[in-house]
Protein backbone atom coordinates (compact mmCIF):
# COMPACT_ATOMS: atom_id res chain seq x y z
CA UNK A 1 0.00 0.00 0.00
CA UNK A 2 2.83 2.37 0.92
CA UNK A 3 4.49 1.60 -2.43
CA UNK A 4 1.26 2.39 -4.27
CA UNK A 5 0.88 5.64 -2.29
CA UNK A 6 4.46 6.65 -3.05
CA UNK A 7 4.24 6.09 -6.79
CA UNK A 8 0.84 7.83 -6.85
CA UNK A 9 2.32 10.90 -5.15
CA UNK A 10 5.31 10.79 -7.49
CA UNK A 11 2.94 10.49 -10.44
CA UNK A 12 1.00 13.56 -9.30
CA UNK A 13 4.19 15.64 -9.02
CA UNK A 14 5.52 14.58 -12.42
CA UNK A 15 2.00 14.83 -13.88
CA UNK A 16 1.82 18.48 -12.87
CA UNK A 17 5.08 19.19 -14.71
CA UNK A 18 3.77 17.36 -17.77
CA UNK A 19 0.60 19.45 -17.46
CA UNK A 20 2.65 22.67 -17.56
CA UNK A 21 4.41 21.50 -20.74
CA UNK A 22 1.06 20.47 -22.23
CA UNK A 23 -0.40 23.87 -21.30
CA UNK A 24 2.33 25.57 -23.30
CA UNK A 25 1.55 23.38 -26.32
CA UNK A 26 -2.20 23.97 -25.94
CA UNK A 27 -1.85 27.77 -25.61
CA UNK A 28 0.05 27.90 -28.88
CA UNK A 29 -2.16 25.41 -30.71
CA UNK A 30 -5.34 27.23 -29.66
CA UNK A 31 -4.03 30.58 -30.78
CA UNK A 32 -2.20 29.66 -33.96
CA UNK A 33 -3.04 26.04 -34.86
CA UNK A 34 0.66 25.23 -34.65
CA UNK A 35 2.14 22.34 -32.67
CA UNK A 36 5.36 23.82 -31.33
CA UNK A 37 7.89 21.02 -31.50
CA UNK A 38 10.54 23.48 -30.28
CA UNK A 39 8.67 24.06 -26.99
CA UNK A 40 11.03 21.80 -25.02
CA UNK A 41 14.18 23.15 -26.65
CA UNK A 42 13.08 26.75 -25.98
CA UNK A 43 12.53 25.84 -22.33
CA UNK A 44 15.98 24.19 -22.30
CA UNK A 45 17.54 27.48 -23.47
CA UNK A 46 15.76 29.50 -20.75
CA UNK A 47 16.97 26.95 -18.19
CA UNK A 48 20.58 27.35 -19.37
CA UNK A 49 20.15 31.12 -19.05
CA UNK A 50 18.84 30.66 -15.49
CA UNK A 51 21.82 28.35 -14.84
CA UNK A 52 24.21 31.07 -16.03
CA UNK A 53 22.49 33.62 -13.79
CA UNK A 54 22.81 31.24 -10.81
CA UNK A 55 26.48 30.74 -11.51
CA UNK A 56 27.06 34.47 -11.44
CA UNK A 57 26.04 34.39 -7.79
CA UNK A 58 22.34 35.26 -8.07
CA UNK A 59 19.88 33.45 -5.84
CA UNK A 60 17.44 30.77 -7.00
CA UNK A 61 14.40 33.03 -7.21
CA UNK A 62 16.12 35.69 -9.30
CA UNK A 63 17.22 32.97 -11.76
CA UNK A 64 13.63 31.64 -11.72
CA UNK A 65 12.20 35.05 -12.65
CA UNK A 66 14.89 35.61 -15.29
CA UNK A 67 13.98 32.25 -16.91
CA UNK A 68 10.26 33.11 -17.04
CA UNK A 69 10.90 36.62 -18.37
CA UNK A 70 13.33 35.24 -20.96
CA UNK A 71 10.71 32.69 -21.98
CA UNK A 72 8.13 35.44 -22.44
CA UNK A 73 10.44 37.50 -24.66
CA UNK A 74 11.90 34.47 -26.47
CA UNK A 75 8.41 33.18 -27.32
CA UNK A 76 7.29 36.58 -28.55
CA UNK A 77 10.36 37.05 -30.77
CA UNK A 78 10.02 33.51 -32.15
CA UNK A 79 6.41 34.17 -33.11
CA UNK A 80 7.29 37.40 -34.91
CA UNK A 81 10.43 36.17 -36.69
CA UNK A 82 9.74 32.49 -37.40
CA UNK A 83 6.04 31.76 -37.11
CA UNK A 84 4.36 34.85 -38.55
CA UNK A 85 5.82 34.31 -42.05
CA UNK A 86 4.37 30.75 -42.18
CA UNK A 87 1.20 31.50 -40.19
CA UNK A 88 -1.36 31.31 -42.98
CA UNK A 89 0.48 28.80 -45.14
CA UNK A 90 0.28 25.00 -45.15
CA UNK A 91 0.45 23.49 -41.60
CA UNK A 92 3.45 21.47 -42.80
CA UNK A 93 5.48 24.71 -43.06
CA UNK A 94 5.01 25.48 -39.36
CA UNK A 95 5.83 21.87 -38.40
CA UNK A 96 9.08 22.02 -40.37
CA UNK A 97 9.97 25.44 -38.92
CA UNK A 98 9.41 24.41 -35.28
CA UNK A 99 11.13 21.06 -35.78
CA UNK A 100 14.09 22.77 -37.45
CA UNK A 101 14.19 25.30 -34.61
CA UNK A 102 14.34 22.43 -32.09
CA UNK A 103 17.42 20.99 -33.83
CA UNK A 104 18.98 24.46 -34.16
CA UNK A 105 18.48 25.32 -30.46
CA UNK A 106 19.89 22.01 -29.24
CA UNK A 107 22.86 22.53 -31.53
CA UNK A 108 23.45 26.06 -30.22
CA UNK A 109 23.17 24.91 -26.59
CA UNK A 110 25.60 22.07 -27.32
CA UNK A 111 28.06 24.48 -28.94
CA UNK A 112 27.94 26.94 -26.02
CA UNK A 113 27.58 24.67 -22.99
CA UNK A 114 28.80 21.33 -24.34
CA UNK A 115 27.05 18.05 -23.66
CA UNK A 116 28.32 17.88 -20.08
CA UNK A 117 25.62 16.89 -17.60
CA UNK A 118 25.08 19.73 -15.15
CA UNK A 119 23.10 19.80 -11.94
CA UNK A 120 20.55 22.45 -11.11
CA UNK A 121 19.56 23.10 -7.51
CA UNK A 122 16.05 22.78 -6.08
CA UNK A 123 14.69 25.57 -3.87
CA UNK A 124 13.41 23.07 -1.29
CA UNK A 125 14.49 19.68 0.01
CA UNK A 126 14.00 16.76 -2.34
CA UNK A 127 13.97 14.20 0.47
CA UNK A 128 10.75 12.34 1.29
CA UNK A 129 8.89 13.20 4.49
CA UNK A 130 7.57 11.26 7.44
CA UNK A 131 3.82 11.47 7.80
CA UNK A 132 2.37 9.85 10.95
CA UNK A 133 5.30 7.50 11.28
CA UNK A 134 5.19 6.52 7.58
CA UNK A 135 7.88 7.60 5.17
CA UNK A 136 6.29 9.01 2.03
CA UNK A 137 8.10 9.81 -1.20
CA UNK A 138 6.68 13.28 -1.47
CA UNK A 139 9.22 15.97 -0.73
CA UNK A 140 8.81 19.69 0.02
CA UNK A 141 10.06 20.24 -3.55
CA UNK A 142 7.22 18.06 -4.85
CA UNK A 143 4.78 20.22 -2.87
CA UNK A 144 6.35 23.28 -4.50
CA UNK A 145 5.98 21.67 -7.96
CA UNK A 146 2.28 20.96 -7.42
CA UNK A 147 1.61 24.44 -6.00
CA UNK A 148 3.62 26.19 -8.73
CA UNK A 149 1.68 24.48 -11.53
CA UNK A 150 -1.63 25.10 -9.75
CA UNK A 151 -0.74 28.80 -9.43
CA UNK A 152 0.20 28.84 -13.13
CA UNK A 153 -3.16 27.27 -14.03
CA UNK A 154 -5.07 29.72 -11.80
CA UNK A 155 -3.21 32.71 -13.28
CA UNK A 156 -4.07 31.47 -16.78
CA UNK A 157 -7.69 30.87 -15.76
CA UNK A 158 -8.03 34.38 -14.29
CA UNK A 159 -6.29 35.89 -17.33
CA UNK A 160 -8.50 34.12 -19.86
CA UNK A 161 -11.80 34.16 -17.97
CA UNK A 162 -11.60 37.31 -15.88
CA UNK A 163 -9.85 39.99 -17.91
CA UNK A 164 -10.53 41.94 -21.09
CA UNK A 165 -7.09 40.93 -22.37
CA UNK A 166 -7.97 37.26 -21.90
CA UNK A 167 -11.33 37.74 -23.61
CA UNK A 168 -9.52 39.28 -26.58
CA UNK A 169 -6.96 36.47 -26.64
CA UNK A 170 -9.70 33.83 -26.62
CA UNK A 171 -11.52 35.61 -29.43
CA UNK A 172 -8.34 35.68 -31.50
CA UNK A 173 -7.78 31.98 -30.83
CA UNK A 174 -11.33 30.95 -31.73
CA UNK A 175 -11.93 33.24 -34.71
CA UNK A 176 -9.22 35.66 -35.85
CA UNK A 177 -11.40 37.18 -38.58
CA UNK A 178 -14.34 37.82 -36.22
CA UNK A 179 -11.87 39.32 -33.72
CA UNK A 180 -10.45 41.72 -36.33
CA UNK A 181 -13.96 42.79 -37.29
CA UNK A 182 -14.54 43.70 -33.64
CA UNK A 183 -11.57 46.08 -33.66
CA UNK A 184 -9.17 43.66 -31.94
CA UNK A 185 -5.55 43.84 -33.05
CA UNK A 186 -4.79 40.19 -33.70
CA UNK A 187 -1.03 40.19 -34.29
CA UNK A 188 0.14 41.50 -30.88
CA UNK A 189 -2.17 39.05 -29.12
CA UNK A 190 -0.76 36.09 -31.06
CA UNK A 191 2.72 37.28 -30.10
CA UNK A 192 1.69 37.54 -26.44
CA UNK A 193 0.15 34.06 -26.60
CA UNK A 194 3.46 32.59 -27.77
CA UNK A 195 5.29 34.51 -25.05
CA UNK A 196 3.02 33.14 -22.32
CA UNK A 197 3.25 29.60 -23.68
CA UNK A 198 7.04 29.62 -23.75
CA UNK A 199 7.12 31.15 -20.25
CA UNK A 200 4.91 28.24 -19.09
CA UNK A 201 7.35 25.83 -20.74
CA UNK A 202 10.27 27.62 -19.04
CA UNK A 203 8.61 27.09 -15.68
CA UNK A 204 8.03 23.41 -16.41
CA UNK A 205 11.71 23.03 -17.27
CA UNK A 206 12.77 24.68 -13.99
CA UNK A 207 10.53 22.24 -12.11
CA UNK A 208 11.91 19.14 -13.82
CA UNK A 209 15.61 20.03 -14.00
CA UNK A 210 16.51 19.53 -10.29
CA UNK A 211 15.36 15.89 -10.43
CA UNK A 212 16.77 15.39 -13.93
CA UNK A 213 20.00 16.94 -15.18
CA UNK A 214 20.75 19.87 -17.45
CA UNK A 215 21.84 18.82 -20.94
CA UNK A 216 20.91 20.25 -24.37
CA UNK A 217 18.29 17.53 -24.88
CA UNK A 218 16.95 17.11 -21.33
CA UNK A 219 13.48 18.36 -22.35
CA UNK A 220 13.03 15.95 -25.29
CA UNK A 221 11.36 13.17 -23.32
CA UNK A 222 9.22 15.52 -21.22
CA UNK A 223 8.03 17.20 -24.44
CA UNK A 224 6.84 13.80 -25.68
CA UNK A 225 4.98 13.29 -22.39
CA UNK A 226 3.57 16.83 -22.66
CA UNK A 227 2.42 16.09 -26.19
CA UNK A 228 0.84 12.84 -24.93
CA UNK A 229 -1.03 14.82 -22.25
CA UNK A 230 -2.18 17.44 -24.76
CA UNK A 231 -3.49 14.75 -27.14
CA UNK A 232 -5.25 12.90 -24.31
CA UNK A 233 -6.82 16.07 -22.87
CA UNK A 234 -7.51 17.77 -26.19
CA UNK A 235 -5.00 19.97 -28.01
CA UNK A 236 -7.22 23.03 -27.65
CA UNK A 237 -8.22 22.64 -23.99
CA UNK A 238 -6.24 24.15 -21.06
CA UNK A 239 -8.33 22.06 -18.62
CA UNK A 240 -7.54 19.05 -20.80
CA UNK A 241 -3.83 19.89 -20.43
CA UNK A 242 -4.11 19.67 -16.63
CA UNK A 243 -6.19 16.48 -16.60
CA UNK A 244 -4.17 14.93 -19.44
CA UNK A 245 -0.93 15.85 -17.63
CA UNK A 246 -2.08 14.19 -14.41
CA UNK A 247 -3.37 11.13 -16.29
CA UNK A 248 -0.07 10.83 -18.16
CA UNK A 249 2.03 11.38 -15.03
CA UNK A 250 0.09 8.80 -13.02
CA UNK A 251 -0.01 6.22 -15.84
CA UNK A 252 3.73 6.49 -16.38
CA UNK A 253 4.39 6.32 -12.63
CA UNK A 254 2.37 3.09 -12.30
CA UNK A 255 4.00 1.55 -15.36
CA UNK A 256 7.45 2.63 -14.14
CA UNK A 257 6.73 1.48 -10.59
CA UNK A 258 5.24 -1.92 -11.34
CA UNK A 259 6.66 -2.88 -14.74
CA UNK A 260 9.96 -1.01 -14.90
CA UNK A 261 11.10 2.49 -15.86
CA UNK A 262 12.30 1.42 -19.32
CA UNK A 263 8.68 0.83 -20.34
CA UNK A 264 7.57 4.41 -19.60
CA UNK A 265 8.13 5.81 -23.14
CA UNK A 266 6.28 2.78 -24.54
CA UNK A 267 3.41 3.45 -22.13
CA UNK A 268 3.23 7.08 -23.32
CA UNK A 269 2.99 5.87 -26.91
CA UNK A 270 0.28 3.35 -25.95
CA UNK A 271 -1.65 6.13 -24.17
CA UNK A 272 -1.57 8.31 -27.32
CA UNK A 273 -2.64 5.41 -29.55
CA UNK A 274 -5.51 4.35 -27.25
CA UNK A 275 -6.61 7.97 -26.84
CA UNK A 276 -6.61 8.53 -30.62
CA UNK A 277 -8.60 5.32 -31.15
CA UNK A 278 -11.25 6.08 -28.51
CA UNK A 279 -11.54 9.86 -28.66
CA UNK A 280 -9.27 11.34 -31.37
CA UNK A 281 -10.15 14.96 -30.55
CA UNK A 282 -9.18 14.48 -26.86
CA UNK A 283 -11.31 14.27 -23.71
CA UNK A 284 -11.86 17.99 -23.23
CA UNK A 285 -11.74 19.16 -26.85
CA UNK A 286 -14.26 21.70 -28.10
CA UNK A 287 -17.42 20.06 -29.40
CA UNK A 288 -17.87 20.45 -33.15
CA UNK A 289 -20.04 23.43 -34.13
CA UNK A 290 -23.74 22.64 -33.95
CA UNK A 291 -26.19 24.13 -36.40
CA UNK A 292 -29.68 24.68 -35.01
Amino acid sequence: MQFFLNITLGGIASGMIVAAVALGLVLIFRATNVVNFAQGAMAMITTYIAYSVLHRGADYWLAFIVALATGLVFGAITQVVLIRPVQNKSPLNAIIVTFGFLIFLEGVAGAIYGSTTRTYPAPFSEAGQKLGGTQIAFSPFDVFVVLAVLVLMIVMLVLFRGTDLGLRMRAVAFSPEAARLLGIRVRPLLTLGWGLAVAAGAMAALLIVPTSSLTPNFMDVILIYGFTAAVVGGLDSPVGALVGGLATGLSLAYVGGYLGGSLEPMAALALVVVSLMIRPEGIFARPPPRRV
Partner: protein
Amino acid sequence: MPVLDIEDLSVSYGAVHALTDVSFSAAEGEVTAVLGANGAGKTTLLRAISGLVHPRKGTIRYDGQQLEKMSVEKIVRHGVSHVTEGRSVIEEMTVEENLRLGSLWRFGRRERGAVIDEIYELFPPLAERRRQHANTLSGGERQMLSIGRALVARPKVLLLDEPSLGLAPIVTARLMAVLRDLTSASKLIVVLVEQNARSSLSIAQRAVVINLGRVVVFDAAATVASDTELRHHYLGY
Protein backbone atom coordinates in the same frame (compact mmCIF):
# COMPACT_ATOMS: atom_id res chain seq x y z
CA MET B 1 -24.18 64.78 -43.92
CA PRO B 2 -21.60 61.90 -43.87
CA VAL B 3 -21.90 59.57 -46.81
CA LEU B 4 -20.19 56.28 -47.60
CA ASP B 5 -18.86 56.94 -51.07
CA ILE B 6 -17.55 54.15 -53.27
CA GLU B 7 -15.89 55.11 -56.52
CA ASP B 8 -14.53 52.95 -59.34
CA LEU B 9 -13.87 50.06 -56.98
CA SER B 10 -12.25 47.01 -58.55
CA VAL B 11 -11.28 43.82 -56.71
CA SER B 12 -9.59 40.77 -58.17
CA TYR B 13 -8.77 37.32 -56.82
CA GLY B 14 -5.79 36.46 -58.98
CA ALA B 15 -7.03 36.49 -62.57
CA VAL B 16 -10.70 36.57 -61.51
CA HIS B 17 -12.25 40.04 -61.51
CA ALA B 18 -14.78 39.98 -58.66
CA LEU B 19 -15.71 43.68 -58.90
CA THR B 20 -15.11 46.11 -61.76
CA ASP B 21 -15.49 49.89 -61.47
CA VAL B 22 -18.23 49.75 -58.84
CA SER B 23 -19.51 53.19 -57.81
CA PHE B 24 -22.38 54.14 -55.51
CA SER B 25 -23.01 56.01 -52.29
CA ALA B 26 -24.93 55.22 -49.11
CA ALA B 27 -26.44 57.97 -46.99
CA GLU B 28 -27.02 58.45 -43.27
CA GLY B 29 -30.35 57.20 -41.93
CA GLU B 30 -30.88 55.03 -44.99
CA VAL B 31 -30.66 51.37 -45.89
CA THR B 32 -28.88 50.75 -49.19
CA ALA B 33 -29.71 47.30 -50.53
CA VAL B 34 -27.06 45.52 -52.59
CA LEU B 35 -28.78 42.96 -54.80
CA GLY B 36 -27.70 40.39 -57.33
CA ALA B 37 -27.39 36.70 -58.09
CA ASN B 38 -24.96 34.29 -56.46
CA GLY B 39 -21.39 35.18 -57.38
CA ALA B 40 -22.29 38.72 -58.45
CA GLY B 41 -19.67 40.18 -56.10
CA LYS B 42 -21.92 41.39 -53.25
CA THR B 43 -19.94 39.75 -50.44
CA THR B 44 -16.65 40.91 -51.98
CA LEU B 45 -18.00 44.47 -51.98
CA LEU B 46 -18.65 44.36 -48.22
CA ARG B 47 -15.30 42.67 -47.55
CA ALA B 48 -13.55 45.44 -49.49
CA ILE B 49 -15.35 48.16 -47.49
CA SER B 50 -14.38 46.55 -44.16
CA GLY B 51 -10.78 45.98 -45.30
CA LEU B 52 -10.87 42.17 -45.38
CA VAL B 53 -9.88 42.28 -49.06
CA HIS B 54 -7.81 45.00 -50.68
CA PRO B 55 -9.11 46.64 -53.85
CA ARG B 56 -7.04 46.65 -57.00
CA LYS B 57 -8.18 50.21 -57.65
CA GLY B 58 -10.80 52.71 -56.63
CA THR B 59 -11.65 54.58 -53.43
CA ILE B 60 -13.90 54.04 -50.42
CA ARG B 61 -14.48 57.32 -48.59
CA TYR B 62 -16.27 57.88 -45.32
CA ASP B 63 -16.25 60.90 -43.01
CA GLY B 64 -13.24 62.49 -44.69
CA GLN B 65 -11.11 59.32 -44.63
CA GLN B 66 -10.09 56.87 -47.34
CA LEU B 67 -10.91 53.45 -45.93
CA GLU B 68 -9.22 51.39 -48.63
CA LYS B 69 -5.83 52.30 -47.20
CA MET B 70 -6.69 51.37 -43.60
CA SER B 71 -6.38 48.06 -41.72
CA VAL B 72 -9.54 46.18 -40.71
CA GLU B 73 -9.08 47.20 -37.06
CA LYS B 74 -8.74 50.90 -37.98
CA ILE B 75 -11.81 50.77 -40.18
CA VAL B 76 -13.79 49.29 -37.26
CA ARG B 77 -12.52 52.06 -34.98
CA HIS B 78 -13.59 54.56 -37.62
CA GLY B 79 -17.17 53.42 -37.04
CA VAL B 80 -17.70 50.66 -39.61
CA SER B 81 -19.12 47.33 -38.36
CA HIS B 82 -19.36 44.31 -40.64
CA VAL B 83 -21.65 41.35 -39.93
CA THR B 84 -20.32 38.62 -42.19
CA GLU B 85 -22.38 35.92 -43.85
CA GLY B 86 -23.14 32.80 -41.79
CA ARG B 87 -23.94 34.23 -38.34
CA SER B 88 -20.35 34.81 -37.39
CA VAL B 89 -20.73 34.55 -33.64
CA ILE B 90 -17.92 33.01 -31.60
CA GLU B 91 -19.61 29.75 -30.72
CA GLU B 92 -17.30 28.84 -27.84
CA MET B 93 -18.22 32.03 -25.97
CA THR B 94 -21.39 32.99 -24.16
CA VAL B 95 -23.88 35.52 -25.51
CA GLU B 96 -22.67 38.07 -22.96
CA GLU B 97 -19.00 37.49 -23.83
CA ASN B 98 -19.74 37.96 -27.54
CA LEU B 99 -21.45 41.27 -26.79
CA ARG B 100 -18.67 42.36 -24.44
CA LEU B 101 -16.15 41.72 -27.21
CA GLY B 102 -18.03 44.09 -29.48
CA SER B 103 -17.90 46.85 -26.87
CA LEU B 104 -14.26 46.48 -25.76
CA TRP B 105 -12.57 49.02 -28.01
CA ARG B 106 -15.34 51.58 -27.68
CA PHE B 107 -16.40 51.70 -24.04
CA GLY B 108 -14.82 51.57 -20.59
CA ARG B 109 -15.75 48.89 -18.08
CA ARG B 110 -18.43 51.03 -16.39
CA GLU B 111 -20.31 51.95 -19.56
CA ARG B 112 -20.34 48.46 -21.05
CA GLY B 113 -23.18 47.09 -18.92
CA ALA B 114 -25.52 49.84 -20.06
CA VAL B 115 -24.75 49.49 -23.77
CA ILE B 116 -25.11 45.70 -23.60
CA ASP B 117 -28.48 46.15 -21.85
CA GLU B 118 -29.58 48.30 -24.82
CA ILE B 119 -28.88 45.33 -27.10
CA TYR B 120 -30.90 43.06 -24.81
CA GLU B 121 -33.80 45.52 -25.10
CA LEU B 122 -33.48 45.44 -28.87
CA PHE B 123 -33.30 41.63 -28.99
CA PRO B 124 -35.03 40.29 -25.84
CA PRO B 125 -34.33 36.56 -26.57
CA LEU B 126 -30.62 37.29 -26.10
CA ALA B 127 -31.21 38.56 -22.54
CA GLU B 128 -32.75 35.22 -21.57
CA ARG B 129 -29.75 33.38 -22.98
CA ARG B 130 -26.96 35.70 -21.84
CA ARG B 131 -25.08 32.93 -19.99
CA GLN B 132 -25.53 30.33 -22.74
CA HIS B 133 -22.81 29.48 -25.24
CA ALA B 134 -23.52 30.84 -28.70
CA ASN B 135 -23.48 27.32 -30.20
CA THR B 136 -26.68 26.55 -28.29
CA LEU B 137 -28.64 29.36 -29.98
CA SER B 138 -31.10 28.94 -32.83
CA GLY B 139 -30.31 30.40 -36.26
CA GLY B 140 -32.42 33.48 -35.62
CA GLU B 141 -30.87 34.07 -32.20
CA ARG B 142 -27.38 33.73 -33.65
CA GLN B 143 -28.22 36.34 -36.25
CA MET B 144 -29.56 38.64 -33.53
CA LEU B 145 -26.31 38.12 -31.63
CA SER B 146 -24.19 38.86 -34.73
CA ILE B 147 -26.08 42.07 -35.38
CA GLY B 148 -26.22 42.98 -31.68
CA ARG B 149 -22.47 42.47 -31.35
CA ALA B 150 -21.90 44.81 -34.28
CA LEU B 151 -24.32 47.40 -32.88
CA VAL B 152 -22.96 47.39 -29.34
CA ALA B 153 -20.02 49.55 -30.44
CA ARG B 154 -22.55 52.08 -31.80
CA PRO B 155 -21.20 52.08 -35.34
CA LYS B 156 -21.97 54.75 -37.90
CA VAL B 157 -21.87 52.33 -40.83
CA LEU B 158 -23.34 48.82 -40.60
CA LEU B 159 -22.50 46.28 -43.32
CA LEU B 160 -24.83 43.28 -43.28
CA ASP B 161 -24.17 40.20 -45.39
CA GLU B 162 -27.21 37.98 -45.98
CA PRO B 163 -28.79 38.40 -42.53
CA SER B 164 -31.89 36.45 -43.58
CA LEU B 165 -30.02 33.42 -44.94
CA GLY B 166 -31.66 30.25 -43.64
CA LEU B 167 -34.09 32.06 -41.36
CA ALA B 168 -37.85 31.48 -41.15
CA PRO B 169 -39.88 34.25 -42.87
CA ILE B 170 -41.31 35.47 -39.56
CA VAL B 171 -37.81 35.85 -38.07
CA THR B 172 -36.60 37.62 -41.22
CA ALA B 173 -39.53 40.03 -41.07
CA ARG B 174 -38.77 40.83 -37.44
CA LEU B 175 -35.08 41.41 -38.16
CA MET B 176 -35.90 43.69 -41.07
CA ALA B 177 -38.33 45.71 -38.92
CA VAL B 178 -35.66 46.15 -36.23
CA LEU B 179 -33.14 47.26 -38.88
CA ARG B 180 -35.56 49.76 -40.44
CA ASP B 181 -36.41 51.35 -37.06
CA LEU B 182 -32.79 51.41 -35.95
CA THR B 183 -31.54 53.01 -39.16
CA SER B 184 -33.93 55.92 -39.02
CA ALA B 185 -33.64 56.40 -35.24
CA SER B 186 -29.86 56.31 -34.95
CA LYS B 187 -28.89 57.84 -38.33
CA LEU B 188 -26.99 54.70 -39.30
CA ILE B 189 -25.71 54.04 -42.79
CA VAL B 190 -26.76 50.45 -43.53
CA VAL B 191 -25.43 48.55 -46.53
CA LEU B 192 -27.54 45.41 -46.77
CA VAL B 193 -26.49 42.52 -49.01
CA GLU B 194 -29.39 40.17 -49.62
CA GLN B 195 -30.52 37.46 -52.01
CA ASN B 196 -34.03 38.02 -50.72
CA ALA B 197 -34.58 41.11 -52.89
CA ARG B 198 -38.24 41.50 -52.00
CA SER B 199 -37.65 41.78 -48.23
CA SER B 200 -34.58 44.02 -48.50
CA LEU B 201 -36.26 46.39 -50.99
CA SER B 202 -39.15 46.69 -48.53
CA ILE B 203 -36.93 48.44 -45.97
CA ALA B 204 -34.32 50.09 -48.25
CA GLN B 205 -34.31 53.64 -49.53
CA ARG B 206 -31.75 52.97 -52.26
CA ALA B 207 -30.70 49.89 -54.16
CA VAL B 208 -27.62 48.80 -56.10
CA VAL B 209 -28.01 45.87 -58.47
CA ILE B 210 -24.75 44.09 -59.28
CA ASN B 211 -24.26 41.55 -62.03
CA LEU B 212 -20.94 39.78 -62.69
CA GLY B 213 -19.07 42.36 -60.61
CA ARG B 214 -20.49 45.46 -62.33
CA VAL B 215 -23.21 47.85 -61.20
CA VAL B 216 -26.27 47.48 -63.40
CA VAL B 217 -28.52 49.95 -61.59
CA PHE B 218 -28.13 52.37 -58.69
CA ASP B 219 -31.42 54.05 -57.93
CA ALA B 220 -34.17 54.59 -55.36
CA ALA B 221 -35.34 51.26 -53.93
CA ALA B 222 -38.93 52.02 -54.89
CA THR B 223 -37.88 52.59 -58.51
CA VAL B 224 -35.98 49.29 -58.61
CA ALA B 225 -38.91 47.46 -56.99
CA SER B 226 -41.33 48.83 -59.57
CA ASP B 227 -39.17 47.97 -62.60
CA THR B 228 -40.66 44.62 -63.62
CA GLU B 229 -38.15 43.89 -66.37
CA LEU B 230 -35.18 44.58 -64.08
CA ARG B 231 -36.68 42.43 -61.34
CA HIS B 232 -37.30 39.54 -63.71
CA HIS B 233 -33.90 39.81 -65.31
CA TYR B 234 -31.63 40.27 -62.28
CA LEU B 235 -33.59 39.66 -59.09
CA GLY B 236 -35.62 36.58 -59.99
CA TYR B 237 -39.11 37.69 -59.01
